[in-house]
């Protein structure tokens, strides 16, 4: 068949296909025309293959290729169920993922908690050490914030309930930004992630050790114990994601190195999603609960302990049994 008659025979079909495509691309397709779309797309693919095999002009082949390309984009569009996916991830996906990736999580936890506890212990034993870890202004600020005389606690003392909102926003931006950086810098063969984990561990450890040493332990520990359950866990999850990325590059196993990186990144980004959720909870708890001074320290400790237990139970047990087909 000559090209000209081929074009004439199918012109109407291609025109109709273009109209359907435009509707789909603008998200206003009618259900009836969409039902016919897959068959029309397959026919177009067949016509493209014919046109190529018969050596029709590059203009016609290009035109069909463009149509096929646009059809492919619409045919393979991702149409998930965001709410159901999110719920599934929250109830089962995330804890299952963390248990499956326990090696990275354990390594990140050892790096982070190890440096935190080690530094805290050292500062308790040698109080002057804090000056070689933290700048003087930061120490002064921490001492002012956790002064037992202060009425409200937190990074800004003396604030009203509207200020809680300001702090919520600040925690969200600051902490999740740090978590993202911890993850992303794992691409530098894991070195960036290790740096961020150690840096955060050493800083937090030094502050905790110093405030405990100078006798501000009650306001400090009662403030941090609640949201710490979520925040510190989130840091280790973001760290685990970064380490996973680095390991994907360094230990590809039998895969090509870049393919291994791609697969590791797909898993790691889910861990980062989990860290983000935990940090949102942490920011909420920190802004609206931890800063309260109406409650006594012992209530804070009890609630804080409960929250830690909750997090441990969640990651240890959630999603172990299948309730419904997934």
């Amino acid at each position, binding site marked *: 068949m000559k090209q*000209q008659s081929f074009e004439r025979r199918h012109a109407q079909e291609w025109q109709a296909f273009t109209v359907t495509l435009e509707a789909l691309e603008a998200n206003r397709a009618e259900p009836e025309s969409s039902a016919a779309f897959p068959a029309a797309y397959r026919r177009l693919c067949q016509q493209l293959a014919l046109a190529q095999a018969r050596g029709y*002009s*590059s203009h016609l082949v290009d035109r069909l290729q463009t149509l096929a*390309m646009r059809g492919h*984009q619409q045919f*393979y569009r991702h149409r998930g169920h965001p709410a159901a996916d999110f719920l599934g991830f929250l109830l089962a996906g995330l804890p299952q993922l963390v248990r499956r990736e326990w090696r990275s999580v354990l390594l990140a936890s050892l790096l982070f908690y190890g440096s935190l506890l080690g530094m805290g212990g050292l500062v308790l034993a040698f109080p002057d050490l804090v000056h070689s870890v933290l700048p003087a202004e930061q120490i002064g600020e921490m001492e002012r914030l956790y002064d037992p005389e202060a009425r409200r606690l937190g990074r800004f003392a003396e604030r009203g309930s509207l200020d809680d909102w300001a702090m919520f926003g600040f925690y969200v931006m600051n902490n999740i930004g740090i978590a993202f950086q911890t993850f*992303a810098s794992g691409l530098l063969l894991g070195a*960036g992630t290790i740096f961020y984990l150690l840096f955060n561990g050493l800083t937090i450890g030094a502050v905790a050790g110093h405030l405990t040493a100078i006798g501000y332990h009650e306001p400090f520990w009662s403030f941090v114990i609640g949201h710490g359950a979520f925040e510190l866990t989130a840091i280790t999850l973001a760290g685990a994601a970064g380490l996973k990325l680095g390991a994907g590059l360094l230990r590809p196993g039998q895969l090509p190195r870049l393919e291994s990186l791609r697969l590791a990144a797909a898993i790691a980004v889910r861990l980062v*999603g989990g860290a983000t959720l935990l940090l949102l909870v942490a920011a909420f708890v920190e802004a609206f609960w931890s800063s309260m001074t109406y409650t006594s320290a012992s209530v804070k400790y009890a609630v804080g302990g409960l929250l830690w237990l909750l997090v441990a139970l969640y990651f240890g047990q959630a999603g172990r049994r299948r309730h419904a087909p997934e």
Partner: protein
Amino acid sequence: MPRSPLALLDNCHRVETPEGIDLVLKPAGLVPRALAFAIDLVLRAAILLVLGSLLAMLGQFGAGFGAILLFVVQWWYMVLFEVLNQGRTPGKQWLGLRVVHDDGTPVGWGASLVRNLLRFVDLLPFGYLFGALSCLAHPSFKRLGDIAAGTLVVHRERPAAPPALPEVAPEAAPVRLTLDEQRALIAFSERHAGLSAARREELAGILAAPLGTPPALAERRLHAIARGLLGQA
């Protein structure tokens, strides 16, 4: 994998689909991508400026909201646009670019999040140096985030106007032509408007002897054969 000599010349990225056809993706290079990024940057600055000054009037509540806004614009602007607007941020849309998976399917949440979070590393050590180097070195112009996410930034396909063939009476080819020869003849005819007269004459002159026509008439003859091949009356 190159399938024809042409595939070696251009840097098209070919993807075989389940339907048994090859999609030809045209990866976008450093310059259009940098321009798209610059447009997005300006747009984000404008959003922050306008909403930021509005929120500043709201006092402390506004400050908290502003911080969340800053966070969303800084980390989620690209992801939200890419996933919800078929792979196009406003800057990419302006320049006719689109983000797709390596297999040509539209980009999803996971891949978009990876490529945009890893932007942080592409920015290192300063001014997108890692990203630019990776983009220049990779055959499909991928920055580090694209490599890890398995994504590709491609040019949007633009429908071209049908080329006008010279008005000559069609005739049959004097000898049997192979598929590639037919294609070459038709391509010559379709592209004649873009070639200078001297160049057309030079190219057609190569075939003057086999066609048995004087070089001056060879071009006309080739157009006639091309029309004949296309079946144009």
